[in-house]
């Protein structure tokens, strides 16, 4: 049994200068065979393993990760959590995740620093106003808290926004979801890893998948840099690299992988106590607990796995930030980075079985997967364990691109694409 994290364990370990903390997860060598293997040790993959072990009694499973856990998009996102999506299917999916977030630190005995500081989405033109009002109504019909704010209420909620009428894209209003907020992204991966490991899940890092072995339409195992691993069920949670795995297995996916960038400023005293997103001018900003402004930029339009984006994308975002927040004009940016996001034609994820028995894909989260981490893991574990989707992820099947039953969240949601 692993030591429980608490104020007492902190005190006890302080007495020995914090040199005797137990390691949070093991470093096992892969077994020859597992009941299921998850490819990808990010938040979604680790959460999938955790819920497989916890809710579906599958402890003989492994998570294989090419690099280190949480080192991909889990550690590169801007940590925003919200569920104010337009369509019923998306609202169900993302609010399921938000409900799990609310109790996650207690459940994992790991402080994921979930902070319900609210997310505000701004409207800059009449169409934005109509879209955001419509979305507010749709959210409330789905039981998701959402209110529409006029310009004065926006200013009151976040006083540093420039709401004057003479800026290029004046603020005409906005929506606010108070239950939304942020969390510490690394802690999510580490918390899930620690709990999954405790239940017997093997987390195998520095283990790259080189091939998927199949016998006809049934999977038999994976070839990795640490040898062949036999398994009957493979859950692929590889984000930007999903197509690479799909190409190994001979499965066709509708994804395009593109660079998405983010940046943080030097740390400053608390200045913005919420998250503000603007779809029209493409700028969103929040402040980390360290005091850095966390700013999300957009995707480049070309396919790339280079984890590098174009300079003009960052420049455009900062132009918009400065127009909305003149107070930030002297801030210096500290770091800038890119991640590779897998984008679906309808900007909704895929949590689905495939035509190959035992092969499941959890991908296509595009620019907004972090917020769904616990819900995605829970529903994907259900899909793998039962070989059938949960009713909350049934709409997010791969077959929707054949049937035409798309979940078209492009622009319809608050997402800053």
């Amino acid at each position, binding site marked *: 049994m692993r030591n429980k994290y608490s104020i007492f364990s902190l005190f006890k370990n302080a007495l020995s200068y914090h040199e005797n903390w137990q390691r949070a997860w093991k470093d096992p060598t892969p077994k020859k065979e597992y009941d299921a293997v998850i490819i990808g040790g990010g938040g979604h993959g680790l959460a999938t393993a955790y819920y497989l072990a916890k809710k579906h009694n599958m402890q003989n499973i492994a998570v294989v990760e090419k690099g280190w856990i949480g080192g991909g998009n889990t550690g590169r996102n801007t940590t925003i959590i919200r569920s104010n999506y337009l369509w019923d299917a998306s609202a169900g999916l993302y609010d399921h995740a938000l409900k799990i977030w609310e109790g996650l630190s207690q459940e994992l005995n790991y402080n994921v620093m979930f902070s319900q500081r609210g997310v505000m989405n701004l409207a800059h033109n009449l169409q934005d106003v109509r879209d955001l009002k419509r979305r507010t109504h749709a959210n409330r019909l789905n039981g998701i808290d959402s209110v529409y704010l006029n310009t004065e209420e926006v200013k009151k909620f976040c006083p540093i926004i420039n709401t004057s009428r003479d800026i290029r894209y004046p603020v005409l209003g906005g929506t606010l979801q108070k239950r939304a907020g942020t969390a510490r992204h690394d802690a999510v991966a580490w918390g899930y890893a620690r709990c999954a490991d405790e239940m017997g899940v093997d987390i195998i890092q520095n283990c790259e998948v080189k091939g998927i072995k199949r016998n006809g339409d049934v999977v038999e195992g994976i070839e990795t840099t640490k040898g062949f691993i036999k398994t009957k069920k493979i859950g692929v949670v590889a984000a930007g690299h999903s197509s*690479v795995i799909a190409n190994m297995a001979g499965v066709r*996916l509708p994804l395009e*992988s593109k660079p998405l960038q983010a940046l943080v400023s030097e740390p400053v005293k608390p200045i913005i106590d919420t998250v503000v997103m603007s779809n029209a001018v493409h700028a969103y900003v929040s402040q980390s607990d360290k005091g850095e402004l966390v700013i999300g930029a957009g995707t480049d339009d070309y*396919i790339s796995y280079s984890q590098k*984006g174009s300079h003009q994308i960052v420049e455009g975002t900062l132009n918009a930030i400065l127009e909305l927040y003149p107070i930030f004009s002297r801030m210096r940016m500290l770091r800038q980075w890119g991640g590779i996001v897998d984008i679906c034609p309808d900007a909704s994820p895929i949590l689905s079985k495939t035509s190959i028995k035992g092969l499941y894909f959890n991908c296509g989260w595009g620019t907004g997967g972090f917020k769904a981490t616990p819900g995605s893991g829970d529903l994907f574990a259900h899909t793998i364990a039962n070989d059938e989707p949960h009713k909350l992820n049934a709409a997010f099947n791969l077959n929707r691109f054949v049937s035409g039953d798309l979940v078209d969240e492009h622009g319809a949601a608050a997402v800053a694409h």
Partner: protein
Amino acid sequence: MFLINCPYCGERDQQEFKAGGEAHIERPKQPTELSDDQWAEYLFMRKNIKGVQFERWNHAHGCRKWFNMARDTSNDEIKAIYKMGEKPPPQ
């Protein structure tokens, strides 16, 4: 961010160009006879290769002409540029 050698205008900043996605996807000759699966394949399914990929680009803020490119998507290195209608270069 990289430079692109437009076959009509010469070397320009990538910012002037618009990426047009995977190249050599042929429009179905008999659209009325396609099954739903074949439509999905044509409309949505993409190779999304990590490595050398053939793709279409448009010089949107220049000559506005389309052309093809062979580019390594793992490091954004451009291997070859060729005109529309030409066959892709051998790997």
